[in-house]
């Protein structure tokens, strides 16, 4: 198992080297959430912590899913994915490596966004380590979501379409622009099925309280379970597609 984990880490490092500076990742990872936020978030009457946790979660969501849409599908179209598949490493560990590689991108962008916004707004981050942990767990969850989207896709545009199909409704219903508490009952219930809701909630808790709360821990647990489900589902879909 350690041998497989080590190979997953090599795959993650290779992905960081190969895919991080691709144009779609930079546009979707940083510019898109920023544009969304300037359009919908800043104009609302949101508390600063809600505003910052929303923006940071969006950056993580768009950054991590974008990487995976490119990293898995482009490898399948260029044939390099087969290079991984013919190596002595299982598909599950390959996907885990890819998710790890993709999830390292989100935190970099998130820290950039968080640093800039807290500096400009003068907001206080009560639990910086808890914030970083929440960003890392969210990033991994969204990278796994990207893997699931790409497992169903043959081409990069198709993967981006599926990703957007998941990302945009999530951005509006996950509490990034409108607090979940102020949503109608049905939407509030629906938002509980969205990983972004838990990411924003965990970040808001970490920013407001110096010690991890029960809600924060539960949010991380839900995100971890969501990651595992996406990864296993993606593995199943890819296995079927690969014959």
């Amino acid at each position, binding site marked *: 198992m350690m041998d497989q984990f080590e*190979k997953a880490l090599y795959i993650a490092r290779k992905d960081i080297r190969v895919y991080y500076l691709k144009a779609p990742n930079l546009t979707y990872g940083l510019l898109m959430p920023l544009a969304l936020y300037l359009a919908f978030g800043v104009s609302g009457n949101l508390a600063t912590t809600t505003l910052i946790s929303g923006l940071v979660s969006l950056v993580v969501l768009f950054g991590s899913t974008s990487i995976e849409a490119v990293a898995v599908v482009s490898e399948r179209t260029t044939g390099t994915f087969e290079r991984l*598949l013919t190596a002595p490493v299982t598909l599950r560990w390959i996907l885990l490596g890819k998710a790890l590689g993709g999830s390292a991108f989100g935190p970099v962008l998130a820290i950039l966004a968080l640093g800039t916004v807290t500096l400009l707004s003068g907001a206080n981050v009560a639990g910086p380590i808890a914030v970083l942990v929440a960003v890392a767990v969210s990033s991994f969850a969204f990278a796994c979501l990207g893997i699931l989207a790409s497992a169903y896709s043959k081409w990069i545009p198709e993967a981006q379409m599926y990703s957007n199909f998941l990302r945009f409704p999530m951005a509006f219903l996950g509490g990034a622009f409108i607090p979940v508490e102020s949503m109608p009952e049905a939407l509030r219930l629906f938002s509980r099925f969205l990983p972004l809701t838990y990411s924003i909630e965990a970040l808001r808790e970490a920013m407001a309280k110096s010690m991890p709360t029960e809600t924060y821990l539960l949010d991380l647990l839900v995100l971890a379970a969501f990651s595992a489900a996406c990864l296993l589902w993606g593995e199943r879909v890819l296995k079927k597609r690969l014959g």
Partner: protein
Amino acid sequence: MDKAILVKSLVKRFGALSALNGVTFSVTKGCVFGLLGPNGAGKTTTIRILTGLTHPDSGQATVLGFNMAEENLQAKARIGVVPEVSNNYEEMTALENLVFSGELYGVSRTERRGRAVELLEEFNLADRAGDTVLGLSRGMKRRLTIACALMHRPELLFLDEPTTGLDVQSAHQLRDEVRRLNKEGVTILLTTHYLEEADQLCDTVGMINKGVIVALDSPERLKASVTGDRVVEVSFSAPIHDRELELLLGVVEVHRLGDKYRITFSGEVEPVSDLVDYARGRGLRIAMLDTLKPSLEDAFLKITGTAPDEVRREKEQQKQRRMDA
């Protein structure tokens, strides 16, 4: 166990299409085995099963003693795979690609770089070690793909169409590499459209058609099995009329190639003695006489009843050249 590959009754279907219909063959350790067949015959599906990329619907594939259905990781650690299309990471350098292969195959940290440099030199890529793959020529990319597959010193190497699309010089270099690797003890399974290449490289050839192995033997024995028309090239000391040759017993066709004639006789006659008699009768001396043996291509055409694209193209070109002549 002296078998590197043991394949038993492989069946694979893609929806209504039956890609493999009970493929059975074995490859002896240390040999070069060629898997030949027309497009869509089942070569790639067979290789995909043997390299663990896909599973058969039924049947069994054993690679280096490991059952591919249950122990494919152990087998994968000991095989090298070179697909038809070079699969290097174009954003990474040649050296980085090799090192990454070493990492995937568990080559020790201390050995990785040294082995990569050794392979770069072996494959004439040392001066391009630091260049990204994007800037390499097709031949260099091909050589790098093979080098990557050799990072962990595999016992068995799968080469899918290794020289397709390469210029003559690169193809020649690659064939030399295959011979050298085999000499070092690496068992090789290759697929190729170039039958001449298979003839030059392979100890054993398996011909696959419509998902079934239709012939399995050494190239020489396969060629010897081709009976039927016999082709003779002959040149006489003085010019003669084509028509006279056409009237000889059993002549199917006559082609004039410069100052010589390529004559096809039906299998029942003995062409050499007939030609000698013909020359004597007209007071001519035979300047050159050569009986052409059936080629692997002839065997392939006879066994499969189909020609791969390249063979078909080559035949058309030959026909055109004859007509031009």
